[in-house]
């Protein structure tokens, strides 16, 4: 079974239908980028995968667990699904180290000495060992976002869900964050990204998913999606973003 399986999912906010029957399979080790115009349902789909949004119908499975089953323990599941948000959402009152070690310590009940080492390790992965004692406000946006990635990695997740994580960053800071993602990709981390960085999507994705009007309009390997779009909607979209 796929690591993530989304089957015929419908989701609406009040009268507004956001997802109109989305189906998608994501295998272990894949890097799936979801592209599309704003309002096409990309972020909502990502948030449904770890149960941040409830769906009206359909099924979502992640790591063998049905996410939208009310009996599912989302707390347990979420320890295996890392998510990083556009606005970082670091804990402003805690140091970088504590931001990273909080969940391993209080959720996974790991020893203080252990988690300190985890913090050092994940910070090295994102190139910010020197900032371990800083507070989030003392960091640039790009650094905060890398700390958010490190915080997620500290839980040793099986999948990373990345929701437009470079969209709030100044252009010169985006590169550092993307580099971290490329390193992760090389290490075989399964990732699902919603992104506007088309060059990046084309370079690292194993599968690109184009969403339109709450549906998976087209999907396939990046070269095919970017050079031979089959639908006029995707063709227009690609023209407008390239």
């Amino acid at each position, binding site marked *: 079974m796929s690591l993530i399986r989304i089957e015929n999912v419908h989701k609406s906010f009040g009268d507004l239908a956001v997802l109109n029957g989305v189906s998608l399979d994501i295998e272990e080790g894949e890097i799936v980028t979801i592209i599309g115009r704003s309002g096409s349902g990309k972020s909502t789909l990502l948030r449904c995968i*770890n149960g*941040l949004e409830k769906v009206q119908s359909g099924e979502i499975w992640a790591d063998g667990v049905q996410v939208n089953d009310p009996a599912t323990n*989302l*707390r*347990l599941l*979420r*320890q295996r*699904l*890392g*998510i990083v*948000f556009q*606005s970082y*959402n*670091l*804990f*402003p*009152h805690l140091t970088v180290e504590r931001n990273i070690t*909080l*969940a391993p310590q*209080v*959720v*996974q009940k790991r020893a203080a000495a252990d988690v300190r080492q985890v913090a050092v390790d994940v910070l090295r992965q994102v190139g910010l060992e020197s900032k371990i004692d800083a*507070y*989030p*406000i*003392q960091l640039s946006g790009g650094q905060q976002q890398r700390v958010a990635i490190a*915080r*997620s990695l500290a*839980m040793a997740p099986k999948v990373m869900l990345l929701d437009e994580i470079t969209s709030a960053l100044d252009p010169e800071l985006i590169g550092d964050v993307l580099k971290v993602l490329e390193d992760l990709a090389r290490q075989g981390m399964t990732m699902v990204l919603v992104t506007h960085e088309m060059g990046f999507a084309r370079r690292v994705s194993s599968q690109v998913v184009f969403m339109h009007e709450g549906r998976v309009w087209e999907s396939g390997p990046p070269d095919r999606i970017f050079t031979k779009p089959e639908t006029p909607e995707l063709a227009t979209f690609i023209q407008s973003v390239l």
Partner: protein
Amino acid sequence: MFRDFGVDEVGLLLKGAQWTVLLSFIAFIGGSIVGLVVAAVRVVGPRSLNALATGYIQAVQGTPLLGQMFLFFFGFSIMGLEVSAWVAVSVSLILFSGAFLGDIWRGCIQAIPQTQWEASSCLGLGFFQQMRYVILPQALRIAIPPTVGFFVQIIKNTSLAAVVGFVELLRAGQMVTAATFKPFTVYLAVALIYFALCYPLSLWSRHLERKLNVAHSH
């Protein structure tokens, strides 16, 4: 023959001020306990309790404190319950403070962005862990300045207890005035004592606020 306004009279005023301070602490501590319950109920309580807490806050905030004191002082005795001025004044000040503090603290907890709840729940933290490690530490920082500020309000509001015969600072002033017939001097002294109690707290509150802004979100 009127007495002079001398050391003895100042001593009387200071004795009254002791009761003002004690009453303020009772109101603040009792009010804090009530306020904590009210804030908790308003943030996470079931709908029925939430409505009850809201009704309580509106009742207290929508009526004058003096009226509430009369209600407890005279109301109880009409019902056949003999209540001393002490009890009536304490109960009404506690309920008064509880409503305001509860509302202030609810606001502070709800001022923490939803994304902090989201981020912590995505890391697998449960409700109490979120509260303890993420939400309350941040809410506390915001809550300190208005809480200290409200303590100043409490100190000043204890003066209303004079009306039901409780001898605190203002009532002591009235009594000294009756004996000395120097209202201006006496009430000026009373005002100075209130000021000496409240001003340091106001300064502290402003200091905390500034400190909080500098270190904001850190």
